[in-house]
């Protein structure tokens, strides 16, 4: 196999969910299409990498200082939904039901991976809750690490004035928001329960 073809397949197969076979199929597809199309795809990847950075307010991906959600004045900023990753924001936004704000932690507590509270986007969350927040929804994944993160956040955020809730256990334990079907995720959000155990 020509070296550059080999390298292209290798690069594509490093993407999640793409095995060697799919990578080869994608590579041959790209090679059959006009050159411009390949240039456009590579430029879009580079642009996304260069322009996207964490939103200064919530940590979601943004190409301005504030992400689209934080910049949207019609949203209810008295409610913050705390998630692990930007992909979780997309999953909840796709439901078209939640109109509050978000906070993206950038992961979950995991001693075995060396991730402690200081490695997550938590200090800015503490600052945010000072002004006019009524409810915080802890929507970390229903995994051991996600549960530990929700419990930790509850322990440092509870004040008595703010309602703190946890998404309901409709999502199977160990699953992730990202892979949960719409109806289940909407139900889990709708039926969130007060976090006071």
């Amino acid at each position, binding site marked *: 196999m020509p070296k550059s073809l080999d390298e292209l397949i290798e690069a594509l197969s490093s993407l999640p969910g793409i095995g060697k076979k799919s990578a080869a199929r994608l590579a041959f597809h790209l090679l059959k299409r006009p050159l411009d199309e390949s240039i456009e795809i590579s430029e879009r990847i580079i642009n996304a990498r260069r322009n996207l950075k964490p939103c200064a307010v919530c940590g979601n991906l943004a190409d301005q200082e504030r992400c689209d959600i934080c910049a949207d004045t019609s949203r209810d900023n008295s409610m913050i939904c705390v998630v692990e990753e930007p992909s979780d924001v997309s999953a909840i936004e796709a439901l078209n039901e939640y109109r509050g704000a978000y906070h993206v932690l950038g992961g979950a507590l995991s001693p075995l991976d060396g991730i402690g509270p200081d490695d997550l986007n938590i200090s800015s969350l503490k600052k945010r809750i000072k002004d006019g927040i009524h409810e915080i929804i802890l929507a970390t994944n229903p995994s*051991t690490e996600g549960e530990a993160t929700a419990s930790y956040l509850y322990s440092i955020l509870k004040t008595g004035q703010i309602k703190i809730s946890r998404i309901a256990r409709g999502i199977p*334990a160990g699953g992730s928001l990202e892979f949960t079907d719409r109806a289940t995720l909407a139900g889990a959000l709708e039926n969130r329960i007060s976090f006071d155990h």
Partner: protein
Amino acid sequence: MSRIKIEAFVIRTTRLAESSRVVTLFSRQAGKVKAVAKGVGKPKSKMSGTVELFNLIECLLYKKENADLGTMGDAAVLDDYHHIPADTRKFGFGSAWCEILQKTSHPDQPRPETFELTALFFKTLDLSEPGNAGLLFWSALFKMLAIEGYAPRLEKCLSCGKKKKDAKLMISLGRGGLICAGCIEEDEDAIPVSQSAFDILGAMGAGGFEDIAEMEVSPRIGREAAEVILSFASYHLGLPRNLKSFKFLESLGG
């Protein structure tokens, strides 16, 4: 391809492409096992929710001869310890135990007594008051040392046989226990301990977890006892002192 049914604790999971994970198990039958749980991140997966840290599970393990990595199937949860992640210090100490099992276990080398110890430790940690997590953890490590034959021997000076009456108590790493001031070698690798820490160590060796969970120990004395146990584990079991979970616990302060 072999197929065996195992009972195991989940001691580590890392995400592999998309929704699959590589899971490290500490099993009763086959010691440390690494296996792929395919598609487990998808809510519809039959294994969904099983391969979570601390869970005691039962599953099938498929393995080609000489392969490092097996494949998991038909997993079911036998016990979860869901109060452990509900408290951050319990979570840290539970994780530290998993890290120790990873570092001190090997494939195809079952450790039945340590398996039982893990079950008992997780169960006690799960139900205990959060403030006792550290004490329970160090007692569990003391008991692991005892299983391996390296528990610190504290009854009397290992050299002259006299009962301890010294103001200055020294515990020798190489000789494996108490050495009195008169018998200690000049450049011997030994840890000085206070009488209180010495008594706590004795109680950890003798008592069950229920008794230990009832003990009142000041943080300073607790740290002294912990230092002895960690030094023994490092000297005799080759356990690294700089576990990631220890750093996590330090970052919590207090």
